[in-house]
């Protein structure tokens, strides 16, 4: 009698647990962005110059340094506002924005087609914030001004060119003493917008040579050495003689790496720098929603492997304070904040794009 009753109790318990667990799982499977905004807009709404509240953003690590510097400087303009930028990658930023847990996202690419459904039809505004060169950094003693063409780069990173004194490299570097050192390619271990845009450059410039596609994660040849983050790749290059890899200009410069000049669409060899990256934005077609691709720009003075990053926000904000804070902060990023960029190793937006971005600010409404 007792045994059966205990069994019944246990069975009921297990059944109850299963029901609870499954129903909770069912609730949680649909990311909800309909709940009251969990982040930001937590203080009284104000009008006029002084705003207060919290803004949360996440996404592209390419933007991290700029976001952090801007947040520091912005504190003196709006001391009662707190802005937090949590990095995590462009994909994470877009997901966080789609789920409604952040107020803005940083992304190195426009929203891909298989993600658009996550935004449930709400309009997303793209605000380009800066441009930045991707350097071809290398470690070769005695060679300080290497020149490379997209074809040669593609062949190197597909492991078709294996040594530094390969005829293809020698042909474009006459007079340079290239050793017979084997080439070690340094690539990203983690998925990244840098990889995405670097491979996009190769796919756009030399589609017949580059076979590995364009994505945040590429199936590199097995001989490649992979590092985490731009600093990780920089470290591999620094410590491996004969290495070559793709590193953001800001990190390459801070790590003291040597970088190559790359032939652009007009046939000129351009060295990466903030001043050669800005023109890249002028020579591309900008869509009405302010998306564009700065790689392989047709501007004659542009560095060909330049890429861009956007801040994404919803056009319609849940309350007036959020809208005001976003306008103020994004306005800073595309306005006064641009003066911080060159010192950090990024390129400011060309005037044409900057004006379009500023005009778009008014589209943030509540």
């Amino acid at each position, binding site marked *: 009698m*007792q045994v059966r009753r*205990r069994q019944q109790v246990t069975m009921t*318990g297990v059944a*109850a*647990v*299963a029901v*609870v*667990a*499954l129903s*909770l*799982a069912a609730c*949680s*499977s649909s990311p909800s962005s309909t709940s009251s905004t969990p982040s930001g807009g937590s203080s009284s709404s104000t009008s006029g110059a002084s705003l207060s509240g919290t803004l949360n953003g996440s996404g592209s690590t390419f933007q991290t340094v700029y976001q952090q510097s801007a947040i520091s400087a912005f504190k003196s303009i709006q001391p009662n506002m707190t802005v937090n930028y949590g990095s*995590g*990658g*462009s*994909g*994470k930023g*877009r*997901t966080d924005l789609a789920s409604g847990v952040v107020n803005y996202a940083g992304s190195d690419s426009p929203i*891909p087609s*298989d*993600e658009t459904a996550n935004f449930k039809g709400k309009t997303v505004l793209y605000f380009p914030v800066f441009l930045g060169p991707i350097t071809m950094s290398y470690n070769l003693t005695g060679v300080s001004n290497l020149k490379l063409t997209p074809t040669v780069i593609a062949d190197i990173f597909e492991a078709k060119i294996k040594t530094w004194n390969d005829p293809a490299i020698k042909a474009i570097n006459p007079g340079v003493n290239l050793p017979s050192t084997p080439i070690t390619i340094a690539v990203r*271990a*983690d*998925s*990244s*917008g840098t990889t*995405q845009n670097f*491979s996009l450059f190769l796919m756009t410039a030399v589609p017949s040579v580059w076979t*590995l*596609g*364009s*994505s*945040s*994660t*590429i*199936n590199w040849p*097995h*001989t*490649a*050495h*992979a590092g*985490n983050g731009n600093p*990780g790749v920089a*470290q591999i290059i620094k*410590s491996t003689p004969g290495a070559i890899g793709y590193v953001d200009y800001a990190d390459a410069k801070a790590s003291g790496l040597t970088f190559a000049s790359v032939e652009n669409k007009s046939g000129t060899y351009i060295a990466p720098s903030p001043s050669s990256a800005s023109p890249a934005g002028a020579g591309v077609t900008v869509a009405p929603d302010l998306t564009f691709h700065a790689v392989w720009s047709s501007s004659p003075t542009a560095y060909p492997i330049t890429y861009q990053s956007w801040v994404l926000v919803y056009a319609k904000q849940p309350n007036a304070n959020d809208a005001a804070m976003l306008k103020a902060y994004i306005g800073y990023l595309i306005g006064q904040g641009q003066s911080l960029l060159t010192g950090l190793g990024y390129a400011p937006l060309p005037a044409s794009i900057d004006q379009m971005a500023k005009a778009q600010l008014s589209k943030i409404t509540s």
Partner: protein
Amino acid sequence: MSAVAPADQAVPAGSAGALSERRPLGDRGFQGLALACGLLVLVILVLIAVTTSQQAASWFSTEGLKIFTNNWNPAANDFGGLAFIYGTAVTALIALVMAVPVSVGIALLLTEVVPYRWSRPIVYVIDLLAVVPSVVWGLWGILVFAPWIQHIYASIGSGVNGIPVLGNLFGPPTGGPSFFTCGIILAFMITPIVTSLSREVIATVPAIDREGAYALGATRLEMIRGTVWPHSQGGVVGAVLLGLGRAMGETIAAALVIGSSPEITSHLFAPGYSMPSVIANQFGESTGVFRAGLMGMGVLLFAFTIIINIIARGVVERSARRKRGA
């Protein structure tokens, strides 16, 4: 809470038997509390399993059995995960092979060899090993350890190149970040767990049994084999399983030192990849089936852990039964 149940002494006061209505409220309350906690734990664990599987569902349905191929190429929408399964198994195995003898050795050292006064500092040293954050292990691994050990790998590699079995295991290609480096770092991380718990388990061996063995003339080693081991093997296996769980689930440190190269190779000094590492590295930019695939790695790890636990428990049961003579 009141202790003594009046009148009927034949039944122990703690049993939930026919006299359950006589049990004091505090006693039933405590049992209810323990039951509630047990249920809550179950809900949480089941939820984790269910939600993770849900998020991985599209990967299983899209790829089907192809998930067991070695073809992970997000740019081409291929998501075969065999290389990661292999890498997890290999690194966990290396970590166990290195950590378990060392950990059990230290545990025995602490309980059998070292006088009590010296055991406290040694315990603190093990604690110090435990508090090194996993991210620091990873950073030390990639910044200090890997560059140093890659020269050793290269020398060993060129030395055994060509020899039948050794050449396949330790021959070139070699690199700093590799299966073996990851295994070593994981071993460092799981040693405190296995040592600490094994020590606690071994300490519960009754002194009488130990003294009995010595009285029969056994050396310390013989006493350990005859008395300590049979008593504590279940607990030590439990400790090892916890360590194994940590080794299989360690994310950031492994991602930094494993080399991030999805390959199935017998060369232990070559770069490789593992399930938690690929999740850590590629999650930030993943969407759709790609993301489901990464979550699916987590689900596969559940399956791994289940299988290993069942095997381990079975082995312990069988040897315990044999010793009991049943």
